[in-house]
């Protein structure tokens, strides 16, 4: 939670990025990536703002659009000139609202805006899209180096990819422990661990070493057959897919209702596999970006996801839908049908908004799913 304050102390430039944009790209330009939705979009008890979307709505965003974007934009806009962000890097092609809200923030607080496009739609035109992503990457590196003084080099990119892959390996290893009989990590802990993929919480070396310590501890719990504190023996195993709620309390709810979380796909796209560490770095990176699960159309994405879900041995799947999300949440039916067909286990959809009450109201729904699994 403290990592959001680190950017104030750094001497490097801070680039606000969208959740699933690979952080090594920003590190390779000598800047610090900042996972804006995570650090500014989580609803925490520290916020005493009555309307957490106020500033974003005043700036022109719709009051009923994605609450993650609304809250994050609102917090940034409320700081006005005090923001530590030096540039807004929007990822265009997946979520319309995020590129629009990035642009709104940039304009209102007077910081540069840059957009890079990752074509997501056309699954059949892989070759066209790969070439396009490569050219987008290369033109971004050239442009930001020449115009804005970011220092990019291929060697640096490769070095940062290696650091990123180290984190990816750790996240995959930790995830594997959740597939065991006695789940050694709680739902909230696992969600927080996964969030480090967003910007490696701004320092891959520090985060890598913390994740390594966590992995060792989990490994030891696993060897002793210990579950994480608070998890009941034989608790139904739940995998979470879709839009994560902004309230951390949601993750405790799974355990409070007698279940155990065996994984979630919130940041899976960033560690679904390692980025090849080849000499033709940008080409390999483009391929990896194109195959990121969230970039693939819903039906294919669900099929790909089921392979990951299956590994975690779940008894049921929860699909999270955020009211106001025009993207992932709209494919709820396609995803539900595919997971049911592929895995043959109960799948339920939840809908929630940004308020704590929304989460409280989910309890009966989650409890009945878990009771049914029992």
């Amino acid at each position, binding site marked *: 939670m403290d990592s959001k304050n680190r950017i104030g102390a750094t001497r490097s430039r801070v680039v606000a990025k969208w959740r699933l944009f690979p952080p090594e790209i920003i590190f390779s330009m000598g800047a610090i990536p900042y996972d804006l939705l995570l650090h500014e979009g989580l609803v925490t008890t520290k916020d005493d703002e009555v309307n957490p979307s106020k500033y974003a709505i005043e700036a022109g*965003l719709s009051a009923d659009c994605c609450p993650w974007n609304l809250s994050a934009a609102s917090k940034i806009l409320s700081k006005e000139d005090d923001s530590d962000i030096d540039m807004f890097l929007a990822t265009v092609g997946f979520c*319309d609202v995020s590129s629009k809200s990035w642009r709104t923030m940039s304009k209102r607080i007077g910081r540069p805006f840059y957009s890079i496009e990752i074509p997501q739609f056309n699954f059949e035109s892989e070759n066209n899209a790969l*070439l396009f992503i490569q050219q987008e990457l290369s033109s971004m590196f050239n442009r930001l180096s020449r115009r804005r003084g970011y220092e990019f080099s291929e060697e640096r990119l490769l070095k940062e990819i290696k650091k990123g892959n180290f984190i990816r390996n750790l996240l995959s290893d930790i995830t594997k422990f959740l597939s065991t009989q006695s789940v050694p990590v709680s739902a909230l802990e696992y969600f927080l661990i996964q969030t480090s993929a967003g910007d490696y919480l701004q320092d891959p070396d520090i985060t890598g070493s913390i994740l390594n310590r966590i992995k060792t501890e989990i490994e030891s719990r696993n060897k002793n057959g210990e579950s994480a504190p608070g998890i009941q023996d034989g608790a139904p195993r739940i995998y979470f897919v879709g839009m994560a709620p902004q309230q951390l309390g949601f993750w405790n709810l799974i355990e409070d209702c007698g279940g155990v979380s065996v994984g979630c796909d919130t940041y899976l796209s960033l560690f679904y596999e390692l980025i090849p560490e080849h000499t033709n770095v940008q080409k390999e990176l483009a391929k990896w970006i194109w195959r990121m699960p969230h970039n693939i159309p819903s039906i294919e994405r669900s099929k790909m996801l089921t392979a990951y879900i299956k590994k975690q041995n779940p008894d049921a799947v929860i699909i999270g839908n955020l009211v106001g999300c025009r993207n992932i949440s709209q494919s709820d039916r396609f995803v539900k049908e595919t997971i049911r067909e592929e895995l043959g286990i109960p799948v339920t959809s939840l809908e929630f908004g940004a308020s704590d009450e929304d989460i409280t109201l989910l309890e009966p729904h989650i409890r009945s799913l878990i009771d049914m699994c029992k």
Partner: protein
Amino acid sequence: MNEKFKDLPEYLARKKENGSKIIGYFCNYIPEELIKSADAVPLRLVSGGVPEAMQAGEQYVKSYCCPYIRSCIGNRVNENPLYTFLDAICVAGTCDGMKHVEEYWRKYSDIPVFSVGVPKVSNRFRTREHTSKYFKSELTRLKKDLEILTGTKITDKRLKENIRLYNLIRSRMRRLYDHLNIGSSKISWRDIFRISHLGYLIDRDEFLGEITNILKELRIKTSSIERSEEQVRLMLYGSILAFEDTKVLDIVEASGGKIVADALCTGSRFWRKDVSIEGSLMDGLVDRYLYNIPCAHMMDFMMRLNYVIATARDSKSQGLLYYNLKSCDTYRSEFREIEEDVKKELGIPSLLIETEYSPADIGTTRTKIEAFLEMVRGV
């Protein structure tokens, strides 16, 4: 022309009997020239405004998805007659919602779905070269798909002929729009808007003949009724305005307003800019379709803004009506900036109307529009 619209099902049935394929598409990034050159019948599917179709779409996407997107799905669910003729569908990768339309058709229909990627950062100096290349490869893929479906080779000769036809249609439609700036003209914006919609559906050769005749008639007859100064001149801009979606238009008219111009994708933007027949025809299509005034899902805000300002100025509009379908965030997020800039450049106010295909908000929408018109009149 209304007769031709009534006869549309018969016309489509006849075409099908004669072996032609009927190909539907949604957004204006799909070149009709390619479809027609494959000897197929293009249908732009702009049906919306019907609550039942919108509600039917909610079986597949959420109620917080834009009503037009819900209708694009719901019209098939409810077996809208036009949809039952379709042999294939083309979907341009535009906004988030359109991606779900494509996914729906792929999963739940048994007709081929041809998707076309549309780069959203196209109009930047740094990206122009590779975005054009990408879009050209996408159109080339569409061309091949159409050739396979119809068994007709799209030759350069055939494509050139059709580009000429569409250029003629576009230029005549622009001339119709020009009539709105003639005080004594007999044609209203609403007439032209209705004609535009017929142009997405009826036989295009016949459509050209019809609008040519209308232009001839307009040259002879001018209205004896001078423009009423009491009617407030409004320009319309925003989300897609569908065929049956007349709620706001009816309220404006009933409240003493008059729409005199638009910058809609189902209106003037569709008829803007011709395809060049000099050099590569595919390059000409790329230039026309990717670099026309972009939809709000595209990143080039300035091009949209300049077009809105120029159109409002040329039409001597006294106010801008910003029509926003609920949950259409791409347009919604730009309202504040457009409002500020239009005020700054032209000194005219804007009104945001957020609505969907339901009669539930008729009262509030009427109150808003009436108050806006009173404000513009200075009452």
